[in-house]
């Protein structure tokens, strides 16, 4: 099973470094580099066999050529010796799960995987500020450090919906997963109260972590990890207990994995840029 060693979320509600693509690439890269450096301070470069940045929102800036990934990666490398090697927005909120699926095919057993989940409104599009599909958004960067088991095997499924009812299919798949899983609880994507009714319809509430949409908005792939940071801060997270990490996307892609949190796992929440409010469990 995957062991989580660090979960760190930095809220970035405002983004101003967008006068030019080069300026945005530099600021984005520096931010990624700083977050990774903080999350991996005790690790060497050789400890990490897979290091990627995923996103839901940062798509058109790359497709238009306004942002160029080599410039972002180079800026990150100015701050850390462990910069992310690549980027994908194809799998939307489930990006971290699809990245783990890819890593499973090539990463070294026993090594660490670093995934940054970056959702920043770099061009301040109104579509991303608030949307009828998910309500208000929350912007920020999650940095996740996980350790692969020594045999390299871990439970994970990544799927695409077969119908127009992607969220329903996701809930049914999660219900089946939980029926066979030893996990204490699963997180769910943060959705407005009305939309979140679907969870009550399909899933047992006692095995779900709270829907924190009222507090954070929808934070895309970071919802998963904000759930566990909050669970740890509340003192309810037991070391070595199994939990089910999930994400589902608007287009009907989802990922489900059982994970454990190391006894010394760092849970860090920086509510506002520059703030130092951190909680460690």
């Amino acid at each position, binding site marked *: 099973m995957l062991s989580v060693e660090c979960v760190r979320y930095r809220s970035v509600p405002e983004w101003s470094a*967008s006068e*030019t*693509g080069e300026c945005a690439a530099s600021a984005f890269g520096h931010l990624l580099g700083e977050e990774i450096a903080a999350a991996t301070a005790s690790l060497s470069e050789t400890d990490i066999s897979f290091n*990627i940045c995923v996103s839901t929102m940062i*798509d*058109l*800036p*790359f*497709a*238009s*050529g*306004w942002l160029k*990934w*080599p410039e972002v*990666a180079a800026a990150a490398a100015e701050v850390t010796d462990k910069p992310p*090697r*690549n*980027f*994908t*927005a*194809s*799998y939307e909120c489930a990006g971290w799960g*699809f990245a783990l*699926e*890819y890593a499973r*095919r*090539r990463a070294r057993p026993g090594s660490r995987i670093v995934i940054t989940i970056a959702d920043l409104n770099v*061009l*301040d*599009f*109104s*579509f*991303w500020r608030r949307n009828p599909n998910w309500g208000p958004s929350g912007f920020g960067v999650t940095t996740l450090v996980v350790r692969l088991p020594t045999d390299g095997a871990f439970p994970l499924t*990544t799927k*695409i*919906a077969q119908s127009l009812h*992607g969220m329903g299919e996701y809930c049914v798949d999660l219900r089946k997963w939980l029926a066979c899983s030893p996990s204490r609880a699963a997180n769910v994507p943060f959705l407005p109260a009305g939309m979140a009714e679907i969870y009550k319809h399909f899933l047992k509430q006692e095995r779900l972590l709270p829907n924190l949409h009222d507090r954070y908005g929808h934070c895309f792939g970071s919802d998963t990890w904000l759930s566990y940071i909050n669970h740890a801060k509340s003192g309810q997270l037991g070391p070595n207990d199994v939990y089910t990490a999930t994400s589902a996307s608007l*287009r*009907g*892609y989802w990922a489900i994995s059982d994970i454990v949190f190391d006894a010394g796992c760092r849970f860090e929440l920086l509510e506002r840029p520059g703030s130092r409010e951190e909680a460690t469990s």
Partner: protein
Amino acid sequence: MISARYEGVLATTKYASRVKRATPPNPAFDDDRDFESFAKIGRWRWSTPQVGYEEKYGVLSDLLRIIRTHRGDSVDEMIMTSRMPSTLRMPKEMFGDDLFLVVDVEAEARELIRLGRRFIAIREGFVRNIVEAGQNEFVLDWHQPPADVEARLAAMIIGFELAGLRTSLSTVRREEVGHE
């Protein structure tokens, strides 16, 4: 060490003669800031879009089916350009335990070469609107292909051209590995 490369341009598609609705910009324009932001990423010159969102996925599905049909079993991995946003779900051909989409295909290819993987790297620049970068190019690099790669690539090219690609390059390189 063997490697193969194919380069082509999307010149037409099976959708070319069909009348269809124009694709709205994605994300949609709503307030003043959106117009300012689109102005930042706008360009003075652009390639002629041959596809909208749905047609692009149709073409890519066809091309991936052709590649999977003719590549054989000796491929560990395929990587392909991640170009979002999307207005609809990606087709099933763009998923699977043999394919991953990344923004920087060249960087990923360097890493897979370092790891000694046998893989196909696909870089595509099929533009869907005049904001997107690209020249409608389709570039396939096959690292450590099987010995009969020429025949497999030739079979792929027949399919590629039926799908609308105009071939500009097809080559196989065989390099002797030095012994110390």
